[in-house]
């Protein structure tokens, strides 16, 4: 009796494999959207650069200041970075850009970036001991981005 039940359950389970494969392919986009919505999952800011928290409007371009990234498995790390993006509103970015960046508003800019969009070089002027250094310029088509390494103030 028990063997019969196990056999029926086993075959039922096995027979479900084919509809499962079909459902996987046919409904893949829906499953993917559902999975993303249910989990609320995002790409780690260590890769995506973080969410934009301030936007500075300048003639011909915008400066996007993203949320500083100190993400750790638990809590925060002692060091991280903040990504700054320059996005043109017209055709192209100016050849030379100077941006004073106030990451944590209230005590003035923590650093100033001098960006040359032709050579894709950046010079970092530090105004705070929390600023460690700048990585190389990311050439994102018409836009540019730089990650400035920071010490965690907390």
């Amino acid at each position, binding site marked *: 009796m028990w063997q019969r039940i196990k056999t029926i359950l086993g*075959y039922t389970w096995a027979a479900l*494999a084919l509809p499962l494969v079909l459902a996987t392919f046919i409904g893949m986009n829906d*499953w*993917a959207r559902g999975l993303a919505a249910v989990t609320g*999952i995002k790409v780690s800011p260590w890769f995506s650069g973080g969410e934009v928290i301030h936007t500075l409007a300048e003639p011909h371009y915008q400066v996007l200041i993203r949320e500083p990234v100190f993400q750790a*498995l*638990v809590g925060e790390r002692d060091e991280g970075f903040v990504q700054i993006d320059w996005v043109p509103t017209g055709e192209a970015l100016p050849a030379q850009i100077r941006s004073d960046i106030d990451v944590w508003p209230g005590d003035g800019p923590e650093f100033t970036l001098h960006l040359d969009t032709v050579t894709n070089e950046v010079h970092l002027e530090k105004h705070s001991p929390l600023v460690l250094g700048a990585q190389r310029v990311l050439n*994102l088509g018409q836009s540019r981005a730089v990650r400035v390494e920071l010490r965690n103030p907390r």
Partner: protein
Amino acid sequence: MSDTSTAGSRSANRPPVWKSLLKVLPFILLTAFMLLGGGASSDPRQLVPLILTFVLISVLFFRMVHTGRTDRYRAIFFITMAFCFVLTFIANLIEVRGSMALTHEDMATGQTPFCHMVIPMTIIPAAFTRTIIFPGSILDGFANIATMFALWIGVTLALGRGFCSWGCFFGGLEDGFSRLRRKPLLRKIGHHWTYLPYAVLGAMVLLSAWTLSPSYCEWLCPFKAVTEFEAVTSTRVLIQTIMFGSLFVGLVVALPILTRRRTQCGLFCPMGAFQSFSNKINAFDIRIDREKCTDCGQCIRVCPTFSLDARSVADGKTRLSCTKCGKCVDACPRGAISFHVKGTPVGHKPARARMLFLYPAFLFLVVFGTGMIQGALYRIVLLVTTGSLIQ
């Protein structure tokens, strides 16, 4: 011992052709629906490869059902798919990006296609931080993260570690190399090395959790040699490049040729180790009828992923790492090994269990792999007609 005695008895026991055709027809119709249901391209450079692939699939499945041999026909499609994937993927990269190298810009803009090999590394960080530690996109673009996870969940529930022999294109490369020689040159591999995949899994999962980066991809994945890799801009990346290059040559090419086994899959792959656990909840496994078995050891010798040893054979089953490729089933001279549905008695209607497995397994393989074969044939046609693999 060769399998001629099995071959002989299989020939004698073949069903009539019409019966095999009847069993195969639903599969052919299903495949046609899956491949052509969305409408086929009218471009002959796309349509002809699709039709050719469809014919190949139908012939292979018919042969699989009619002859009772699984591994040979599975391997033809599996290996073809793998090499076609490499050709298509690299050609696409060069067409879009200009090279196989992945730049920081590509990573910062989420343009890295998500690879299934990184899945185990993402679980703990995702649980703690609700983020995926991979420079891809959640829903946008080719092979985005959510789609690949949905695909992986579906195939894992259906096939367990069968994914490794009926889906993973990386495994197909090794499967191909492992069949180049008639006899192995290296036969003895220490049993303790079969635990290395679990060690690599444990180490990489913990390292990824600690560093919040996909450590296996960064340091060890040999398949970066045939897909994409970080542009060498620092000593660290140079070391990583040397490591993955060496691992590819050693584990994916050389050792499979010398041992006639899938050495990367069986002795290294952390995704394979992770996938092994899913065998516990899968409906299918491979079982050995101890009454028929004579302990000749042929199955142990042929198993490509070291999933059979003396102890497991004595227990009448495979180890957890079994990928259900069917090679041991085909090789057993006594017909003692068979596909099995859990819950049913061992040796109870093995042909039915086999069909119940083959349908979802081969369907997954062909739907997953047809695009790769079609893409590669298209590239070859492009090469012949224009002199270049890329547009």
